[in-house]
């Protein structure tokens, strides 16, 4: 057998390359087909979707980790732009959403068109399972390559959320407030701090980045502070604003903006070492029920949808597109030193360790 192969001068590397090329062929063909589709300008963005077909399909179903009011606001805005396409959504937390999507597909029910997860690790897992449809959006040029999937076309990073420290100004003076991440380890904050549960993508990235900066010891010391874990930023800031917690150790800027607008006595601290940031990932699922409407929706989400993500109070995600307008409050994402995991594969691979460690820390 080996002899036979050597007769054609095939090296092992050559076989592997040929195998990889064969595996990639359907994707390449699909990609070529997608690129071949004519680009249309609609409203103020470009799309490769066939708009007439998309309107004939009449519907697009978006699965999202975001809240109900958020999902409703987004889809209402899409339907306002395209009145012949009914924008629907279903929401669940990322883990439950992932389970639901996979269960539907294993039962042969393809109802979802576009899915958005709250962290990149879930999106990479779905990509590995062949769960995305490749769509080479003409709007990808508005994004830096690092905010697109590899290869581009499976998903894009639809928004970002970053975190610092926040404190209640009634219960903590500015002088004693923590200024750096390491200040959180001061014993005076024991039983007085909040953070998120392992369900949170932002919590995952904070764990990863601070571990990278300060080593394993940081989280071991943090665990001794007996932090309280919650599921959402709204809960964290609600408690902080009312003084139930003195410090929020994972204070998302978006949550801070929300309570600040309600007159809460809280203050945001941006530690000089940087602010861990997590991204949401949105892409068309394979075998979408409404393929053309799904493409149109993704292009819309990459452009006009970004305005809603950045300005609607149920999102407040700074946009990762090139040169976005300032966020509500006048700040720009570039005003902050934001920490993204550089090695996405290593970051995703560390997720199981994070969940185990974090659950233990939260008393689960």
């Amino acid at each position, binding site marked *: 057998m080996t002899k036979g192969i050597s007769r054609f001068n095939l090296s092992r590397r050559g076989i592997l390359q040929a195998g990889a090329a064969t595996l990639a062929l359907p994707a390449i063909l699909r990609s070529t087909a997608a690129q071949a589709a004519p680009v249309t300008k609609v409203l103020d963005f470009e799309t490769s979707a066939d708009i007439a077909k998309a309107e004939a399909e009449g519907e697009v179903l978006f699965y999202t980790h*975001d*809240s*109900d*009011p*958020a*999902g*409703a606001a987004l889809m*209402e805005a899409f339907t306002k732009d395209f009145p012949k396409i009914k924008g*629907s*959504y*279903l*929401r*669940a*937390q*990322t*883990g*439950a959403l*992932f*389970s*639901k999507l*996979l*269960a*539907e597909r*294993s*039962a042969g*029910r393809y*109802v979802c068109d576009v899915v958005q997860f709250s*962290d990149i*690790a*879930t999106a990479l*897992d779905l990509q590995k399972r062949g769960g995305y449809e490749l769509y080479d959006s003409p709007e990808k040029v508005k994004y830096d390559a690092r905010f697109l999937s590899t290869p581009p076309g499976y998903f894009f990073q639809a928004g970002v959320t970053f975190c610092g420290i926040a404190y209640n100004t009634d219960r903590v003076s500015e002088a004693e407030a923590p200024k750096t991440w390491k200040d959180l380890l001061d014993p005076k904050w024991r039983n007085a701090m909040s953070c998120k*549960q*392992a*369900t949170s993508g932002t919590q995952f990235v904070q764990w990863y980045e601070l571990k990278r900066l300060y080593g394993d010891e940081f989280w071991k010391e943090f665990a001794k502070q*007996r932090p*309280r*874990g*919650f*599921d*959402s930023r*709204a*809960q964290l800031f*609600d*408690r902080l*604003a*009312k*003084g*139930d917690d003195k410090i929020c150790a994972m204070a998302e800027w978006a949550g801070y903006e929300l*309570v600040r607008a*309600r*007159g*809460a006595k809280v203050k945001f601290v941006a530690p000089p070492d940087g602010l861990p940031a997590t991204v949401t990932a949105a892409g068309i699922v394979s075998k979408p029920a409404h393929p053309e409407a799904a493409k149109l929706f993704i292009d819309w989400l990459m452009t006009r949808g970004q305005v809603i993500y950045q300005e609607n109070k*149920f999102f407040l995600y700074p946009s990762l597109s090139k040169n976005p307008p300032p966020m509500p409050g006048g700040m720009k994402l570039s005003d902050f030193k934001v920490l993204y995991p550089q090695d996405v594969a290593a970051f995703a691979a560390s*997720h*199981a360790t994070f*969940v185990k460690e974090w*659950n233990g820390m*939260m*008393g*689960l």
Partner: protein
Amino acid sequence: MPVPAVKARPPMQLVIGGGVALVAAIFVLYPIFYLLQAAFAVGDPNVRPPEAYGLDNFARLPDYWEIMLNTLSVAFAATLMALVFGFLTAWILTRTNVPFRKTLEQMMAVPYYVTPLLGALAWSLLGAPESGFINQVWRAMGGTGALIDVTGAVGIAWVMALFEGSVAFVMISAVMRSMDPSLEEASQVIGAGRFRTMMKVTLPLVAPGVLGAAIYVFAEMLGSFTAALVLGTPSRFYVITTAIYQLVSQYPPRMPLAAAMGVSLFAVMFIMLFLYRRVVAGRSYVTVGGKAFRPRAMDVGAFRWVLFGICFLYVFLSVILPFATLIYASVQRLAVAFPAADNFTLEHYRTAFSLNAIRSAMGNSLVLGFFTATLGVAVTGLIAWLIQRSRLPGRGVLEYIVMFPQAVPRLVFAFGMMWAWLVFPIPIYGTIWLLLIAYVTVFLPLGVRTITGVLVQLDKSLEECGEMCGASWGYRLRTITMPLLRPGLLAAWLLIFIASVRELGASILLMGPNSKVITPAIVEAFFSSSSELTAAMALIQTVVIGLAILVLVPLIKRASQHGSSSA
């Protein structure tokens, strides 16, 4: 000498009764199969059907012993409190001449109308150690620290007993209403005091109803989620449902472990049901015989004001105080005990009414509630009759089967239903029909337990008389059993309607884009917005449910009276 209940099984009874029993069994066992499949699955938790089977998930359960212990202790404490409240208030309001009885009775049922989140949220606003209104007032009066702290085990049990336990009052009072007062009067005539009569006559006679309520309430407490979520999380106190919620919400979701946790609760429930059957078996609880009676209230003299005080205290703690708190919080930007004038706002109500999705969700919830209750009463009434009165083979097993949905937390059972109905050849997945099936399935135990409690009080000889006179099974059911069961059937209808409108665990996973319901949206507001918006939404839901009940109950009453008189 009594005639055997059913001498020869008429075909109609077998066909209809057996058919309903079979459908109910399929509704329950079909998802259970998938749940068991998940509990024994090993390998990638997201591959279906599972790659391999084993006991790995059950082997991991001892790691969670503390959570299991938390769950059992909180459920036990809450059930005990709920039964004491429920029995005492049901006795006062159905058997004595307490003043303002009608008003108190209506107020007593209010905690059950509301989503459990409302109670937890209200008590969290009242009794959180730092921000709780009571503690703020306490400190303003010169006190130090916290006067009360509802975060933790005691607070969870308290809120669960006040709100989710209010079902005990509804179930027990339905039984007490069907009781002939001559037995209590006879006890008093021979010299027993009121308390002794209550303990020696009333309590034993309503024992099946109380035990039925105990089993139902205990199971409800085991599956309770929102009180533990709102009040337990701040003190790192987890119960099985909050742990399962975390396990299935995390990525990667640990469904097999959650399923194993849920399935392990079957054992607890079946022991409870076995004990119930042992206690009830072989004893007679008949209080409604052929002799006519009119329920009469016992004259308790001046003591009635003390009894009024007890009921009023319960109503104050479970209705007046929480509602006042939520109304106060819902009109503030950031809820505090002593707000500045510019803190008041109606913004949360404007936001709640502006959400289109929420308006349609409320409509869906009401429609689903009506059909679930109507269908549920018919199905569970028939099942209760089959279990108690027929000689249908396997009727004992049927009683265990219909308790399954109550034995496992709804959040986990919902996964079983999702997997089951996803592969079902008729495409009902994602539609409102699936929610209807799911609701009828998960509320089978509620209907069966409520109706059974009243059914066992009816003397079999009444039906046997009809049979001896040549009446068919269907005719006897319509003209004898159903009219006598009316209090139980109405209570079951109301309970199922309310339970459906406030359902959370199954709805989260099973609703589709066009079949959204209201309670998940309210819980969602708690996670994504603020306590103040959540309070506004929960209050709106309560008012809508209250109005729906005001309109629907007289209609149902009239329909059932018309049905029986025309028969």
